[in-house]
C-alpha cells in the first residue's frame, strides 16, 4: 500500500492510515498477487522482489464493490446512492442542526468524508442488501466531541491511534460479531476512561462518527491557514479553520515538522476559543476613580509617559512573558534597557528548568548543547524521564518516547507520583520529592564502582566528584530517597547497557528546594554516562526569551525570587506587566500597567490597560524546546484597537522622545535581531515561510567538567500542624491572562485549575468526597479548592496546579510565595487541609 501510494497508484482503503500499523479490516485494498492464493490486502502485504501485483482488475472491482456495499448497509447510505445527489449537492446546503444523522445532508462531515470519496471511486449506485440502523445512543456526555457510533464503520483507526500512537489506550473494540462497537472500559464516559482529549481519534475518523462539537453545527468552514500553536514549548503546526474572520476550530497539520499530524487537547480543541474569548480586551483602558474607562491609544500612552516620569529608575519593575514572540521580547528588552534604563526585569522564564541549567552552566563555565530533535528521541535506547507528567506537559515528545519504548527502548521514570505512563516504564524510581539529587548520586556511585574510570579521570573535577560520592552509603538509599537499593542497581545497569541514555527533565526537578543540587548531580551523572541532557521547558518561547534576555543582561539570569522580594517590599513602585507574575492581592503598586489580551483580576486593578492581539493576529517567531525557530502568521487583523507589543513599546519610545526604537513591522525587528544577537543569524522569515528547518545557532560544546556538590540531605518535612505535602505543579493551561482550565468549559472538565488532588485513602480519612470545597493552608497563606480523587498520588500527598493568572483566592502561588529558603521549596509545601464553606 505504501509503495502504491508513493508511486501514485490509487488503491481504495478505509482502515489504513499512514501513521498506523496495517489492520486489514476494511478489505477494500485487496489486490491480486501472482502466485498467491486469494486476495491479500495491500496494506498488510509487504513488497518482495519480483512480485507481480494487480491493483485493478474486473474481479477486484466487483469484490470491492460488494464489500463496500456491505459497509454501507451499516452506515446511513440514502444520500450516497440517491438519484438526486448531483442537484442536491449543488442547490442545497447541508442541514446540520440536527442530532441524529440519517444521511449525508444531515452529516457535519458532508464533503469531507472518506467514505463518500471511496463510494464515488467505486461507483456504488445501489446497495443490494437491507440497511441496518444500529440505533445506538449518541454519546454526548464528553467535552469537545460527540460520538455517534451509528455512523461508525469499525475501521478501528481511532482505537489504533489511541493505542499505537498516543499510548492512551482509552478506546477499544467491545463485544464481537455484528454487535461489535467502539467503546471505553465499562462504557464509561471518556472523562473517566483516561482520555486526554488529544483529538487524534476525531482526526483519523473516515466518517462523521466522531464529531467536533465546535464545528458540528456550523456550515462549511471557509478557509484554513497553517500557523504555530503557542500553548506549549513544542510548537505544533496547526491549521486554523475560520470563516468570515472568525476562527472556528483548529486541527493539527499533517505537514508539521514537529507534530506530524498530532496535537493535544489545547491545540486541537481549545485554541479556537481563545481568540474570540469574552475576556478579550479590545480598547485601551484608563482608571478613572474606581472604574476603568475606555480611552484612545493617544490618551493611554500619554498617561503612561506622564506617570512613569514620577518614578525613579530603580522603582520601576517590568515583567516579561515567555509566551511573547522573539520580536516582542527583543523590543521589550530594548525598551527597558535603553528607553527606561531599568534593570529590574523579571519573568517566570527564570523558573524554568532551562534557566536552572543555564545558571549551572554560567556558574561553572559550561557550555551545554541544548538543541535536539524530538523525532530523534524515538531512536533512543534508554530514556530517563523526570519531573514532569509528559503526556500532559509535552504530549508530542511523549509520542516519540512511546515510539522508542515500542521499539524496545528502556524507559525509567523518576517521580514521586504514579503517572499514567509508568505502565510503559521498565523502572519507576519513586524518589521522595526533593531528594532526586541523592538518587542521582547513588546511581553515580554504583556506576563508578562498576565502570572503568580511566576515561573519566581525565575530566576536570573528577577526583572531587569521586570524593563527594564517598559519603553516600548505599544501604541508606531507602531511608534517604525512598528507593530500594535493588532498583537503583537495575537503573544503573540500564544506564550502562546499550547506547548513551537521554535524560529529559521537567519543571518539578528544578523547582524543589534542591534545585541547584539536582541540576549538579544530574549533570555529573550525565557526564559520567555520556548521556544527553535536555530540559523540558514549558512556555512556547522560554528559549527565545532567555536567549534575548541573557544578551541584554550580559549572560545573567535574574533570580525570580529576588524580583518578587522587591515587588512585595515597597508599595511606592511602578509595575509594568506584560507577562505573568505572582501578584498578591495585598500588594498595591502605586502605578500598575497591564498589557495583555485578556481581562483578569490583576488587570481589573490596573491604572492603565493596554490591549494586545493574540497569536492569530500578529506575526513573529518562537523558539521551541528543540531550539527550532518557528514562525506564526497573521491570520486575521488585530481585533479592534489591540496592538502588538512591539508597536506599543515603539510608540512609547517615540512619546518619550527616544530615537532609534521605531519599528514598523516585525520583519524589521528580526533583521535587527539577526544582526545583534548571536545564534539568530539564520532566522529569515522567507526561509521559514518556505518551510525550511532553522535551529537557533549554538556554540561548540564547551569543556567537560564535573561540578562539585555536597550531598547533604534536605527534605521538605511535614509537621503536625501541616501534615500534608502539597505538590505544586506548574501548569501550562494558561494563555496570557486567560486561565484555560477555568475559562474553557471543556478543559475545565478534564483538568480544572481549582482541583486539589488527594488519594482516596486520605479523602476517606478526612471524610471528603470528590467535589467538596476545601481550604489549603500553608505557613504563607491559604487558598480554596475542590477535592479531586486521584489514584496516582501516594498517601499524605496533595497536588495543586499553579497558574500565574488564576484568581488569587484559588491560586496556589499564595502557598509558595513569598519564598523563604529556610521554609520550603517552590514546588513542595507542607499544608493543612480544611473543609471549606461549600
Amino acid at each position, binding site marked *: 500500500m505504501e509503495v502504491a501510494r508513493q508511486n501514485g497508484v490509487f488503491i481504495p482503503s478505509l482502515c489504513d492510515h499512514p501513521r498506523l500499523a*496495517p*489492520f*486489514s*479490516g*476494511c*478489505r*477494500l485494498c*485487496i489486490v491480486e498477487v501472482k502466485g498467491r492464493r*486469494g*486476495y*491479500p*490486502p495491500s496494506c*498488510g*502485504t*509487504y513488497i518482495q522482489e519480483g512480485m507481480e501485483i494487480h491493483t485493478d482488475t474486473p474481479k477486484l472491482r466487483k*469484490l470491492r464493490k*460488494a*464489500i463496500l456495499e*456491505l*459497509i454501507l*448497509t*451499516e452506515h446511513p447510505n440514502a444520500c450516497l446512492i440517491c438519484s438526486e445527489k448531483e442537484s442536491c449537492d449543488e442547490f442545497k446546503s447541508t442541514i446540520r442542526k440536527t442530532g441524529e444523522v440519517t444521511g449525508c445532508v444531515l452529516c457535519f462531515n458532508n464533503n469531507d468524508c472518506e467514505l463518500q470519496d471511496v463510494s464515488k471511486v467505486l461507483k456504488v449506485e445501489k446497495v*443490494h*442488501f*437491507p440497511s*441496518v440502523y444500529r440505533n445506538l445512543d449518541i454519546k454526548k456526555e464528553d467535552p469537545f466531541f460527540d460520538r455517534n457510533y451509528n455512523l461508525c*464503520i*469499525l475501521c*478501528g483507526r481511532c482505537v489504533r491511534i489511541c493505542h499505537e500512537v498516543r499510548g492512551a489506550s482509552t478506546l*477499544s*473494540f467491545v*463485544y*464481537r*460479531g*455484528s*454487535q*461489535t462497537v467502539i467503546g471505553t472500559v465499562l462504557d464509561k464516559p471518556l472523562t473517566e476512561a483516561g482520555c486526554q482529549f488529544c483529538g487524534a481519534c476525531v482526526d483519523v475518523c473516515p466518517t462523521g462518527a466522531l464529531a467536533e462539537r465546535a464545528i458540528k453545527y456550523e456550515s462549511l468552514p471557509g478557509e484554513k491557514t497553517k500557523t504555530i500553536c503557542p500553548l506549549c514549548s513544542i510548537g505544533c503546526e496547526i491549521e486554523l479553520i475560520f470563516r468570515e474572520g472568525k476562527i472556528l476550530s483548529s486541527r493539527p497539520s499533517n505537514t508539521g515538522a514537529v507534530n506530524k499530524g498530532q496535537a493535544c487537547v489545547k491545540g486541537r480543541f481549545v485554541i479556537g476559543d481563545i481568540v474570540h474569548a469574552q475576556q478579550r480586551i479590545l480598547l485601551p483602558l484608563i482608571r478613572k476613580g474606581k472604574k476603568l474607562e475606555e480611552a484612545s491609544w493617544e490618551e493611554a500612552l500619554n498617561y503612561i509617559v506622564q506617570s512613569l516620569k514620577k518614578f525613579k529608575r530603580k522603582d520601576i519593575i517590568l515583567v516579561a512573558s515567555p509566551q511573547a514572540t522573539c520580536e516582542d521580547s527583543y523590543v521589550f528588552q530594548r525598551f527597558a534597557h535603553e528607553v527606561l534604563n531599568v534593570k529590574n526585569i523579571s519573568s517566570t522564564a527564570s523558573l524554568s528548568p532551562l534557566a536552572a541549567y543555564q545558571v549551572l552552566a554560567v556558574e561553572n563555565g559550561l557550555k551545554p548543547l541544548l538543541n535536539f530533535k524530538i523525532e530523534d528521541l524515538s531512536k533512543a535506547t534508554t530514556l530517563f524521564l523526570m519531573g514532569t507528567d509528559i503526556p500532559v506537559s509535552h504530549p508530542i515528545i511523549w509520542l516519540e518516547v512511546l515510539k522508542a519504548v515500542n521499539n524496545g527502548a528502556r524507559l525509567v521514570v523518576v517521580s514521586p507520583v504514579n503517572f499514567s505512563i509508568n505502565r510503559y516504564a521498565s523502572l519507576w524510581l519513586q524518589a521522595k520529592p526533593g531528594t532526586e539529587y541523592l538518587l542521582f548520586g547513588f546511581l553515580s556511585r554504583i556506576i563508578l564502582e562498576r565502570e572503568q574510570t580511566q576515561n573519566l579521570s581525565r575530566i576536570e573535577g573528577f577526583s572531587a566528584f569521586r570524593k563527594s560520592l564517598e559519603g553516600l552509603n548505599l544501604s541508606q538509599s531507602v531511608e534517604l530517597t525512598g528507593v530500594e537499593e535493588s532498583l537503583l542497581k537495575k537503573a544503573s545497569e540500564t544506564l550502562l547497557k546499550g547506547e548513551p541514555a537521554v535524560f529529559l527533565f521537567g519543571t518539578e526537578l528544578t523547582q524543589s528546594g534542591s534545585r541547584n543540587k539536582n541540576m549538579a548531580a544530574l549533570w555529573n551523572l550525565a557526564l559520567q554516562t555520556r548521556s544527553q541532557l535536555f530540559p523540558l521547558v514549558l512556555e512556547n518561547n522560554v528559549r527565545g526569551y532567555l536567549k534575548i534576555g541573557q544578551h541584554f543582561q550580559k549572560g545573567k539570569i535574574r533570580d525570580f525570587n529576588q524580583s518578587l522580594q522587591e515587588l512585595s517590599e515597597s508599595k511606592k513602585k511602578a509595575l509594568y506587566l506584560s507577562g505573568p507574575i505572582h501578584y498578591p492581592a495585598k500588594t498595591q503598586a502605586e502605578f500598575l500597567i497591564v498589557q495583555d489580551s485578556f481581562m483578569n483580576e490583576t488587570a481589573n486593578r490596573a491604572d492603565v490597560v493596554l490591549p494586545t492581539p493574540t497569536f492569530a493576529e500578529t506575526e513573529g517567531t518562537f523558539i521551541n524546546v528543540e531550539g527550532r525557530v518557528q514562525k506564526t502568521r497573521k491570520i486575521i487583523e488585530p481585533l479592534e484597537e489591540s496592538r502588538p507589543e512591539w508597536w506599543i513599546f515603539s510608540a512609547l519610545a517615540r512619546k518619550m522622545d527616544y530615537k532609534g526604537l521605531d519599528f514598523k513591522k516585525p520583519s524589521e525587528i528580526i533583521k535587527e535581531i539577526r544582526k545583534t544577537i548571536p545564534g539568530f543569524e539564520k532566522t529569515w522569515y522567507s526561509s521559514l515561510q518556505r518551510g525550511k528547518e532553522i535551529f537557533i545557532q549554538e556554540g561548540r560544546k564547551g569543556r567537560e567538567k564535573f561540578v562539585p556538590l555536597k550531598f547533604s540531605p534536605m527534605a521538605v518535612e511535614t509537621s503536625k500542624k501541616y501534615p500534608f505535602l502539597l505538590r505544586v505543579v506548574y501548569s501550562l493551561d494558561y494563555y496570557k491572562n486567560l486561565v484555560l482550565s477555568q475559562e474553557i468549559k471543556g478543559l475545565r472538565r478534564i483538568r480544572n485549575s481549582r482541583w486539589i488532588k488527594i488519594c482516596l485513602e486520605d479523602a476517606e480519612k478526612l471524610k471528603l468526597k470528590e467535589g467538596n470545597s476545601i481550604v489549603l493552608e500553608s505557613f504563607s497563606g491559604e487558598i480554596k479548592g475542590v477535592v479531586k480523587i486521584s489514584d496516582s498520588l501516594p498517601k499524605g500527598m496533595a497536588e495543586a496546579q499553579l497558574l500565574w493568572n488564576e484568581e488569587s483566592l484559588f491560586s496556589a502561588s499564595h502557598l509558595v510565595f513569598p519564598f523563604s529558603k529556610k521554609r520550603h521549596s517552590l514546588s513542595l509545601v507542607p499544608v493543612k487541609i480544611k473543609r471549606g464553606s461549600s
Partner: protein
Amino acid sequence: MEEIDFTKLEEIRTEIEKARKEQKTCVTVCGGTGCHAYGCLKVAQAFKDEIKKQYLQDQVDVRTTGCHGFCERGPIVVIQPYGIFYQRVHLEDIHEIISSTIIENKIVNRLLYVDPRTNKSIIKEKEVPFYKKQRRIIFENNGFIDPTDIRDYIALDGYKAITKALFEMTSEEVIAEIKASGLRGRGGAGFSTGIKWEICRQAKSDTKYIICNADEGDPGAYMDRSLLEGNPHSVIEGMIIGAYAIGAAEGYIYVRMEYPLAVRNVTIALSQARKLSLLGQSILGSEFHFDIHVFRGAGAFVSGEETSLMASIEGRRAFPRQRPPFPAQEGLWGKPTNINNVETWANVPQIINRGADWYSQIGTRKSKGTKIFSLVGKINNTGLVEVPMGMALKEIIYDIGGGIKNNKKFKAVQTGGPSGGCIPAEMLDLPIDFDTLTKAGSMMGSGGMIVMDEDTCMVDVARYFLNFTQEESCGKCVPCRIGTRQLVEILTRITRGQGEETDLKRLEDLATTVKMGSLCGLGQTAPNPVLTTLRYFRKECEAHIQKKSCPALVCKELICYYIDPEKCVGCLLCLKNCPVEAISGERKKVHVIDQELCIKCSVCFSVCPPKVSAVFKYTGMKKKRIMDLASKKKN
C-alpha cells in the same frame, strides 16, 4: 529436588510395572465430562465405599479414568483386566457388580450393551460395535489411565518417546521422522506438521515458542477436551518433543475457561511432570530446557484462529491478523512460534515410539494416521470415535454410530464444525480424509460430525450455523462481520417464507464475497454451510421460496398443525397441554386447532399418544388449504 535422568525414569517405570504385575482387579470408572454429567463421581465413590465395606481393598482397585468415548452410554464402568463393559451404571447397581462380578465372577446381564441389530448382549468392551471398528491410537490409553496420576501414564510406556528423541535423535531427525510419517495438523487446515516444524526450526531467532491450541469451540466437538482431560501427558510429551525439534524453550497450552476439568488435569499433569524432571531445566539430565504454561482463554470462538490466539496470549483483543508473516516467522511476541492442535501433539509420541513407517501405513495416501471424530446429532451411538483416515462415512455412521435414531432416514452430516459443510446421503460412500472433505465443499475441521435425519431442514441448519459464525465473528473485517449478518438475514427470510426468487443468487454471490474477502479462516469458511446447502439441497431451498413450503416440516412460519378428525379420539391431552389454549373440543369429541392462536410450539404433536397420532404437520399447498378452511369456518 532429586536429580532424575532417563535411566532413573526407566527405573521408576520398572518399579511401577512391577508393582502392577500382580494383576489386581481394577474397576475403572470413566471420568470424562459426559460421564461426569451422568454422575460418575458418585458412582466411583460408591464403588470405593462398597469395596471397603466388603473388605476387598487389597484385591480390587478403583480408578477414575479418562473418557472412553461412548458418552451416550455413561456412566461407563469397565472391569479390568477382563475388559467387562458395563454401561449406564447407577448407584443401585454397584452392590450387585461387586458381589456378583467381582466376587463370584458372574456377569450382570442387564448392564451389558445390547447390539440393537442383533439383540445380543456384549460382554467385552472391544467387542462392542462402537469400539470394534475403531482404531484407537490416540485414545488407546484413555480408559486405563487416571489422568491425575503420572505413574499410570509411565506404566503404559509414557515418556518413552521423549527419552528416545532426546538421547537418540537430533532435532533434525525428529523433524524428518514427523515429516516422513505424513502427519497433518488436526486443527482443521491439515498442513503438514513436519514442514511446519521445519519452517519454525529454520527461522532465525534467539527465542521461539510452541503453543498447544486447545481452544476448541466448534459446537458438538469435544475430542481435544477429552484428550486433555483423559490423557494430558500424551499432549505434554508431544509438546516437549516438538519443542526439542524446533528449539523452543517455552510453550503455552491455550485452553478455554469453559473446560475446568481440562485446566485442572493439565495443571496437575504439568506439576507432576516437572517433579520428574520432564519439564524445566535440563530435562532428564539432557541439555534441553523447556517449560509449559497454561493460558486460559475467555472462550471466544475466534481465539482458535492461530493469530488471534497469540494476540489473546499477549493480552490483546483476540483479533486475527493478516498472514504472512506466518507464526513460524513472526508469532507470539513477534518471535517464531509453532502452533499445533491438541490432537496433533498427542500423535507425536506415538510416531516417535513406533516409527514413521508404522504410522504412515495407517490412513490414505495423503492423509495419514487416525482421526478422532465427535459423532453427535440424530445418531444412536453418540460419542468420540477414532478411526483411520479414509474410512467411509457410511461405516462411521452405521457401523460405529449404530445408525440413525428411531429408524429415521439419514439426510446429511455436517462435518468440520460451524464452518464446515453438509454432506448429503448420496455421498455416504465418501472415504473421509482432508482432501475428500474439502472437495465435497466441507472440511475436516477439528472433526465434528453432526448427523441429521430426515426431520432436519437444511435451510434452517444453514441459518443456525451462519448465526453462530455471525455471533462469533471477531468484528474486525467487513465481509465476515457484515456479510455473515446479511447471510443470516436472507436465510431467516427464507425460513419465514419471505424469500424472493433472487435470494438464492444473492446468497451465492454474498457467500463468495465473504469467502474471498475475509481476513481469517473463520470468515473464509463461514459460508460453507450455505454453499453446500445450495449445492446439495437446492430443491429444498427452492421449495421454501417458490412453494413456501418446508419439506422437513421444521420452519415454523411455513408449517401448520392439524388434527385429523378421523383419527382424533378426543382424549383432551393436547387440549390440556396447549400453552395458548388454541385447541377446542370436548371429551370424546374431535379437537380442533385455532390456526390464528396457534404458536406452533409442537406440544400437541408430541403429546398425542403414538397409537392415535392424530396431529399432523403440513406445509406448502396443504397448509394453505387448511388455513383457508379454518378462516372460512370462522367467517
